[in-house]
Every structure is written in structure tokens, then in C-alpha cells.
């Protein structure tokens, strides 16, 4: 990764407030978040609960509008990038219809995205997450880890340029976590850009080229994994830079 590489993701001074009650009281979730992610790299968004990781990902996915600032995906606004299918997104809360099989679920999204060569693309996505054998089973029979992997398959279906993953390792056992790591490495090899949020610092260190540490809706560290290593590791940075 060099600075000559184009930026795939650019977040500029993002501010987001949530209304918390009927009286109009507001909670500031993001207070001027800025960072960039180079094309073809993997970036980890880490931070304590409530630091603004999921909000940042939703803004970049074009699912919400910031109150101030802007976010771009390959030079397009996040909303345009979403509409043109250039972004894949795995939400934190993953509700899958229990009555569909994994393959039917992916087929629906592939049809909706008007993808060509639907069956090959579905097979490729299922192979990436190691779910080919279970693709014909109803999702009601899936374990949490399998559902999470199917969610990832949905996010990468059709090969979007940018993949946003909100807590992808949540609820996964060690084997499934290792599979997820392999899938993320494969996405990077294919030239796709991955931005993931995580609470698991060792995994973030292992999978990512870059780390953005958020606390209280602000970026408190943004650097390459080499910089993280010279600063004593991610765990050390986390404890030093975030407020307990």
C-alpha cells in the first residue's frame, strides 16, 4: 500500500447526531470523523461501544445522511455508490428469513441487483465463506456463525468495489473466525477494499493493513498496521487513547 494508490473510501469531517427523545434532545454519535482507506486494502474500525463505528459504516453505506461532512466511495457520494451496487454491507443486526434456503436468499439479492451469471456468482460467494454444503438448507436451521457467514456472502455477492462489515466476527467460533480471515484476505487479493468494525483487537491486527481507532465519536488514531506495531500493538494503543 502506497500513498500513490487512490482512496476507495473517504470520510471527511463526519458529524452525526441522533434524536434521543420527543423533546428533541440529541446525542452526538460522530463529532468530525475523517479518514481515508486506500483501494485494495483492509481497514479496521475499532473502538469502545458507542464510539461511532456502526454509525460511520451506515453513513459510508449510504443508509443515512450525515448532519455535516461528506463521505465518498471511489469519488461517488455514498448514496450513489449504494444505488449503483458498488458497496456491499453486512449489518450488525442480521435478520434472515428462516423459510428460505441460503441459495434462495442469495438468488433473490442477485436478481434484485440484476447480476449476470447469477448461479456462478452465488456459488463463488458461498465458496468464499465455506457454505456450499449448507446452501440447500433452510436458514432457520443455520447456527449463528453460519448466518453470519451467509450475511458476508450477501455483502460480497456481485463483487462490489468496497465491502463494509459491521462486527463480522461477532458470534463466530475459532474455526469460523479463521475462515472469515481467509475470506477477507481473498477479497483483498481480488482488489476489493474492506472496511470492518471489530471489538476483537488481535483479529483486527492480523487482518488489517490500516486501523482507525474511534472514541467518543472522534478519531483518536489512524495509521498503518506497521505504525500500530511500533506503538506497542493495538491493545496498548486502545488502552492509551480511549477513555475508560
Amino acid at each position, binding site marked *: 500500500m502506497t500513498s500513490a494508490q487512490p482512496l476507495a473510501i473517504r470520510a471527511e469531517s463526519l458529524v452525526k447526531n441522533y434524536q434521543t427523545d420527543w423533546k428533541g434532545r440529541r446525542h452526538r454519535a460522530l463529532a468530525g470523523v475523517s479518514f481515508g482507506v486506500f483501494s485494495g486494502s483492509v481497514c479496521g474500525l475499532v473502538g469502545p461501544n458507542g464510539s461511532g463505528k456502526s454509525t460511520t459504516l451506515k453513513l459510508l453505506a449510504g443508509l*443515512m445522511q450525515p448532519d455535516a461532512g461528506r463521505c465518498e466511495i471511489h469519488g461517488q457520494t455514498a448514496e450513489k455508490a449504494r444505488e449503483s451496487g458498488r458497496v456491499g454491507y453486512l*449489518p450488525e443486526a442480521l435478520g434472515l428469513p428462516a423459510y428460505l434456503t441460503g441459495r434462495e436468499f442469495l438468488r433473490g439479492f442477485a436478481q*434484485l441487483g440484476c447480476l449476470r451469471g447469477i448461479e456462478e456468482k452465488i456459488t463463488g460467494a458461498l465458496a468464499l465463506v465455506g457454505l456450499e454444503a449448507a446452501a440447500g438448507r433452510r436458514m432457520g436451521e443455520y447456527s449463528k456463525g453460519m448466518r453470519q457467514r451467509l450475511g458476508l456472502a450477501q455483502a460480497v455477492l456481485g463483487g462490489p468495489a468496497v465491502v463494509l462489515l459491521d462486527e463480522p466476527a461477532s458470534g463466530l467460533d475459532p474455526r469460523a473466525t479463521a475462515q472469515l480471515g481467509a475470506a477477507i484476505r481473498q477479497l483483498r487479493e481480488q482488489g476489493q477494499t474492506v472496511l470492518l468494525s471489530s471489538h476483537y483487537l488481535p483479529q483486527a491486527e492480523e487482518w488489517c493493513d490500516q486501523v482507525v481507532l474511534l472514541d467518543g465519536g472522534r478519531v483518536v488514531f489512524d495509521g498503518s498496521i506497521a505504525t500500530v506495531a511500533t506503538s506497542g500493538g493495538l491493545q496498548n494503543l486502545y488502552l492509551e487513547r480511549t477513555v475508560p
Partner: protein
Amino acid sequence: MNFPVARRMWWLLQQALREVVQQRFAWILGCTALVMIAGASVLREFNFGAEEGRFLRDFVEATLALWGTVMAIMLNVAMVQGGVEQGSLVMTFMRGVRRHEWLLSRWVAVGVALAWLTVLGYLTLGGLLAWHGHAVPVVELAGAGGRMFLRLALVSSFALTACAVSRGLLLATGLALSLTLAAQLSSILQWAGRHGGAAARWGWQAIDWVVPAFRVLDSGTNALHALIYAASYAVLYALLACALFSRREI
């Protein structure tokens, strides 16, 4: 590249109808018919004489109105609020679907379900009348079925708007029920407006404008007028729901 709007809407509608079926709707239809048949059998124990046919019809229509209202609200709440809370709609939006398209597809699917319920209710009524040896006024029952469907479609629009504006299941259900109640009590509201003070008059008048009156759908009113009136309000409420839902944070 995404589906053209019409194909996208068709896809969304198919998914929504599938979800309606998954809410055990076929069972609910079957149970509704059974309740009507059982209730009609109990009614036969009483001696209504020549009025029996009218009692049967009142019973089935009252059951349908109450049960249909419950279904219209619960199906909207389950399909809209459930979709929001489970996060499944987020993945749909990532495929270029617009919020209003998703919401309208659910509204239409609930409308189809309510149409099934109405048809089943009136077919059961016709069957019960014939079984008990009464004349079956087919045209009259078809007209009454149409009016019942319009009423349920209005309740469904109220529920859709309530789901678009409120975040919790209870709040959405309460708001939809309040609007339904206001529509049901429109005659009383009108009377209170006429006989109250200036503030009450303006208050009731405002409610009368905002909430459609179910009394317009009564059998005594002109059918075309009832159709235009109910359809206009239903579409207005659905559009309001779309506008509110487009601004809602998910």
C-alpha cells in the same frame, strides 16, 4: 445496474406476499371461517324467526370488521416494524431498492391478504345463508364485501403510517388503533363538534378532515363516492407513510 422500477416492485411484492404466508396467514383464514361457521351454528339455537338471515349477516360482518381490523394492524406492524428491527431491509436497500418501494410493496401485500380475508368472509356468509335456507343476495353481498375491503384498506393505511412514524411496536399499534377508533366514531365526533364550543368545534373539524369517516362506507351511501373517498384517503395515508419513512433513521 438495477432492476427497472416495475420489476423491482414485483420482486418486492412477491417477497412480501411470501412473508404474509409465513405469518401463518392461511391458518388465520381457516380459523376465521371456522369461527364464523361455529358462531352461526350457535346463533341458530336462538329463535330469530324471519330475522335470522339478517342476524347471520350482522354476525359475520361484525366478526369480519373486528378481525380484519386486527389483521390489518398486526400484519403491517409485523412486516414493517419487524423488517426494521431485524435489519433485513438494510440488505435490500443495499441493492438499490428505495425506501418507499419497500414500504409500498408491504402495504400492497397486506392489501392482498385483506382482500382474501374479505372474499373468504363473504363466501362463508353466502354459504351459511344458503345452508340455512335463506336467499343469497349475490350482488348485494358483493357490494358489501367491496365496502368492507375499503374499510380494511383504510385501517391498513393508518397502520402503515403509524409504523412509519413510530419506532416501537406498541406505539405503532396504539397509533393505528387510535386512528381507526376516530374513523369509527366519526358520527359522534361530528355531533360533538356541532354541539361544543368554538375550540371543540375546530378540534373536531380538524379530526374530521384528517381522519376519514367510516360512516361514508355504509351501505346507504353512493358506491362510487365511497370508493373514491376511501381510495383517496388510503393513497394519501400511504404517501404520507412513504414520506415519513424516507426520513426515518434505520
